[in-house]
C-alpha cells in the first residue's frame, strides 16, 4: 500500500514536470557570454546595430550595485525579444524576455552590477538586432562578497 502511494506521488510529480510549462529554452551559452557581441552570437546572429527605436532608462549613478532599476523598451515594429546586458559583470546577459503578440515591448526589472559599466538594451525586431546603451556608475558593487 505504501509503495503504491509513493509511486503515485512520483508519477504525479513527473506529470507536472515544469519543463512542459515553458516555451523558451534557457541557454547556458547565452548566459555565459562575456560581452554584448558574444551574447548576440550565442543568440544566432553576428551583427547588431545601435537604434533610436530602442530605449534604456536607469539611474546615472547607482548607490547600491545590488539593486539597479532598469527599464528597456523598443518601438521597432515586430519586436519579439528583449534583453538586458551589463558589460562588466562576470556574465554580460542579465535577463531576456520573449514578447508575444499583444504584449508591449517594454519591461522593467532590477539587476546587480559589479562595477560602473555600460548597460545595454538588446531587441530583436523582424530578425534584426537593435541596441541602445547607457553608462551607469556604481559606487558600491553588488556582485562581490
Amino acid at each position: 500500500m505504501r509503495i503504491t502511494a509513493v509511486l503515485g506521488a512520483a508519477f504525479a510529480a513527473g506529470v507536472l514536470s515544469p519543463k512542459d510549462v515553458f516555451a523558451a529554452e534557457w541557454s547556458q551559452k547565452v548566459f555565459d557570454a562575456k560581452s554584448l557581441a558574444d551574447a548576440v552570437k550565442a543568440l544566432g546572429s553576428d551583427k547588431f546595430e545601435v537604434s533610436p527605436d530602442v530605449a534604456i532608462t536607469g539611474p546615472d549613478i547607482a548607490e547600491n550595485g545590488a539593486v539597479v532599476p532598469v527599464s528597456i523598451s523598443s518601438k521597432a515594429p515586430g519586436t519579439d525579444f528583449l534583453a538586458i546586458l551589463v558589460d562588466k559583470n562576470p556574465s554580460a546577459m542579465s535577463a531576456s524576455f520573449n514578447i508575444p503578440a499583444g504584449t508591449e515591448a517594454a519591461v522593467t526589472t532590477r539587476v546587480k552590477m559589479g562595477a560602473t559599466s555600460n548597460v545595454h538594451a538588446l531587441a530583436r525586431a523582424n530578425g534584426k538586432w537593435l541596441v541602445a546603451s547607457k553608462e551607469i556608475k556604481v559606487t558600491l558593487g553588488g556582485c562581490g562578497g
Partner: protein
Amino acid sequence: MGNPMRIRAGVAGDTVEVKILMRHDMETGQRKDPTGAVIPAHYIKTIVAKHKDKVVFDANFGPSVSKDPFLSFKFKGGAAGDKVTVTWVDTSGDTRTDEGTVS
C-alpha cells in the same frame, strides 16, 4: 516550494499592467561565506505569465538579476476580474505558481 509572489495587475483601457515581486535569494555562485567556501549558485531561471491560458510574458533570468526579483510588463486584451498566473522555476528545480486578479 518557494516563497509566495506578490502580483498586482491593473487595467487601463484594454491594457493590463502587471507587476510581480518574487521572493528569492538569487545567489550568484560567486560569493563566499565567512569560512571562504563558495556559496553555490541558486537563482530563478525561467518565469512565465499567463492570461486565460495564453502566455503573455516569458522571461529567462541569469544570476545577475537582483535578489527578490521585480518585473513589470503590459499586455493588451485583459479586463478587470481576469486572472494572471505566474510560474517560476529556479536552478534547483524548485518551482512556484501564484495568481493575481486584474483590478
